[in-house]
């Protein structure tokens, strides 16, 4: 973990940098993240070949949960704690230097790296915005226009694409792009797909897509370049709900067949 300056009121925790700890092997994977994003390898890898992005995402998730917990306890005065692909942003700090000193003394509990059988990673914490049991089940109609393209990248048929997606337990790594748009991590290494070279001018709300190591669901209609595999009617963002986003960071998600 490395702390990067981000202006007068913010710090960026960079979880991709090499730590002198047991994660050293994983960091070697992290260095190849860019190459893996568009990797279209035709085999699924075992745990040793877990997507490098997932290894970093696990570290980001551990820090996110720790920092939300610390803020809840009153140890941290950040207005925003924003996880992303390999970083956690702390914004609205009254004294970033003081916070940086605190961070050096804090260590998050590493999260479990398995899938469904390992259960929730946030047991015992409060108000982390995650569910304590089970995963959010998103009912998906798998009829996306890019299913065949994804099948081509994965060198399998469309049925196998749907089988893999429904069998995967995803987790919300972070949100961005639009309110309630969640970047879902959990696909095996080698299953990353490229984005369209020219984004579609309008992707309908509820569209389920893939890009790089991520799956995602468009909460509202917008332009977008992800490969579309299906659609859902589940409302993903409602300003009158608490929390307004159905898929907040840390939430476990299953894209079940509707």
């Amino acid at each position, binding site marked *: 973990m490395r702390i*990067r*300056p*981000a*202006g*007068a*009121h*913010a710090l*960026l925790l*960079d979880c*991709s940098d090499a730590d002198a700890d047991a994660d050293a092997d994983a960091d070697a994977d992290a260095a190849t*993240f*860019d190459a893996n*994003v568009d990797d279209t390898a035709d085999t699924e890898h075992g745990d040793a070949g877990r997507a490098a*992005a997932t290894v970093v995402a696990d570290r980001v998730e551990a820090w996110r949960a720790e920092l939300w917990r610390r803020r809840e306890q009153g140890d941290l005065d950040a*207005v*925003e*704690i*924003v*996880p*992303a*692909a*390999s*970083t*956690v*942003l702390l*914004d*609205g700090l009254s004294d970033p230097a003081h916070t940086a000193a605190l961070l050096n003394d804090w260590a998050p509990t590493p999260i479990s790296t398995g899938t469904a059988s390992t259960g929730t990673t946030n047991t015992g914490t409060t108000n982390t*915005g995650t569910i304590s049991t089970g995963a959010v089940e998103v009912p998906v109609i798998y009829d996306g226009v890019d299913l065949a393209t994804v099948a081509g990248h994965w060198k399998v048929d469309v049925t196998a694409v749907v089988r893999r997606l429904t069998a995967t337990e995803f987790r919300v790594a*972070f*949100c*961005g*792009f*639009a*309110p*309630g*748009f969640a*970047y879902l991590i959990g696909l095996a290494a080698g299953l990353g797909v490229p984005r369209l070279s020219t984004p579609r*001018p*309008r992707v309908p709300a509820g569209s389920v897509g893939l890009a790089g190591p991520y799956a995602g669901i468009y909460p*509202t*209609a*917008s*332009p977008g*370049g992800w490969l579309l595999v299906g659609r859902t009617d589940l409302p993903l*963002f409602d*300003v009158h709900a608490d*929390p*307004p*986003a159905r898929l*907040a*960071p840390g939430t476990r998600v299953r894209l079940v067949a509707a």
Partner: protein
Amino acid sequence: MTGIPPADRVGAADTPGRSAEAARGEEPGMVEEPGMVEVVRAGALTTVQDLGRPGWAHLGVPRSGALDPSALRLANRLVGNPETAAGLEITLTGCGLRFRGATTVAVTGADVPVRVNDRPGDVGRPLAVPAGAVLRVGPPRTGLRSWLAVAGGFAVEPVLGSRATDTLSGLGPPLLRDGDRLPVGVPAGPPAPVDATATVPTPAEVRLALRLGPRADWFTPLALELLLGTAYTLTPLSNRIGVRLSGAPLPRAVVGELPSEGLVLGAVQVPADGQPLVFLADHPTTGGYPVVGVVVDVTPLAQARPGTTVRFHGSQR
């Protein structure tokens, strides 16, 4: 996925908090409500703004809010509002409003002509508005944006704790249109004493203090010299999301893609073309181009027109 999105992102279809729309369902002129303002002329870009909706960035919700919060705060104090009350942010072409009941308003920000019916008014002073009078804010002589507060504040429905219009995500009330009617709240109390300069002269050149990071190490030493040592020009591709600059392109030391990461107000992001942009209130919550540095105070950019020279300098540590 990164940078300033195309204009068709602005103003999503299902925008909540459309109180003006709801009000439009009434017969015009049939109901004499003192707490109502009619938009006689919306102008090119007039939005409801308060101090924004911080605290939701982890869900992808931008902070939004007035581009110059201190100017909105002052306008609110001048009419006796709490500083958090919602006002209007008026851009370049001005606007016109008819007030049903007698009230007090204040305009701050750019140097603009202000009239209440035929009577000229001053920027930065409370103005008495008789019942039925029309307030007209003209195009600025210098600068770009004004903030208007009315006693009681604009009482549109809050969304996630804020009445701000977010032009990136579409949250908050829609952009003002001719004929809109906006509800006004109950005046809170007497005006506060004036304790700040009402208008700031708009210099031909904007100087911005910059703190390097978080990704300054993704750029060559030459890039940092160019960024801090040469002039950039503000381009017309600038809005509430951010201002795009043109000038010496900033060469990268690290090639390849940056995984998306959280963005702060004032972040100077450098897309693939090497031309920096500075993020303002409606900036996206995450972005995938490296941020070379963060501007300490972006409020001068709220008044910077296209063509303005922008210079960055290292901040005092």
